[in-house]
């Protein structure tokens, strides 16, 4: 069995014993989830890069010091660290910087699309920018449940407990969020296209 096939728990255990490669696997496994979570909160690529680094360094320090609780799971743990750091930073800044690249372009312009023609690439960038704006326009409780369920991968039960509502309320908010997003996407003629978002 290669390191890539090992469970998070096994990789953590190997890393604590000194196996560096196991951490590299964990980093590659969660780098996008951590970065996306942070970026969607702070809306600044440079800040998101720094906070991604801080998140993993915090995790390294905890693992190295023996303070990691093995009963918890690595994924929710690392995503929680990322979320908390992003929220702290956002509260300190108290505003959403929307454009961050030196040339004024959006962060998503730096993303690569596998062999997509330029027209598709451009459409995808525009779609991402609009989609991000649609999420920001949602009522706070709907945006929150999308962030928690889709990007932090919390269960609806965990979301309900975390936000002090019933699971039906959490699910209802998700439903309204998706309906509202769908409506906005239709209004702006945006549709999911498998050619643009290769799986």
């Amino acid at each position: 069995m290669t390191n890539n096939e090992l469970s998070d728990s096994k990789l953590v255990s190997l890393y604590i014993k000194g196996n560096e490669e196991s951490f590299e696997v964990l980093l590659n496994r969660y780098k996008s989830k951590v970065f996306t979570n942070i970026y969607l909160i702070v809306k600044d690529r440079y800040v998101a890069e720094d906070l991604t680094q801080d998140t993993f360094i915090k995790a390294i320090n905890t693992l190295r010091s023996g303070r990691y609780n093995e009963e918890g799971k690595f994924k929710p743990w690392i995503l929680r660290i990322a979320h908390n750091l992003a929220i702290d930073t956002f509260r300190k800044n108290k505003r959403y910087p929307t454009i961050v690249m030196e040339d004024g372009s959006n962060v998503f312009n730096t993303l690569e699309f596998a062999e997509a023609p330029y027209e598709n690439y451009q459409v995808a960038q525009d779609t991402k920018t609009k989609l991000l704006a649609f999420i920001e326009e949602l009522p706070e409780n709907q945006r929150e449940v999308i962030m928690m369920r889709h990007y932090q991968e919390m269960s609806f039960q965990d979301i309900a407990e975390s936000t002090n509502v019933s699971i039906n309320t959490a699910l209802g908010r998700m439903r309204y969020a998706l309906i509202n997003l769908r409506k906005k996407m239709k209004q702006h003629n945006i549709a999911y296209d498998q050619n643009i978002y290769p799986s």
Partner: protein
Amino acid sequence: MIKTFTQVDLIRFIYNETTPKQHHEIELALLCDSELMDNFKSLKETIKSLDSLSCSPSNSTLEAILNYSKSTNLHAAH
């Protein structure tokens, strides 16, 4: 008899938060109920679009993290 399912049930289904029994019942209902299938496709498509916002940190950030990790490895042979 085929049960009736709501959009909330479909959301739980898409996010794999149904029991195996519910999962099977919804799969069965989707085969027989075209309106439910339309709702499913619509929700699934919207949820899938959220994946498009996923992005990765730069290589320099990843290298910095790995370098930090190596620098703190007390088990490393010197």
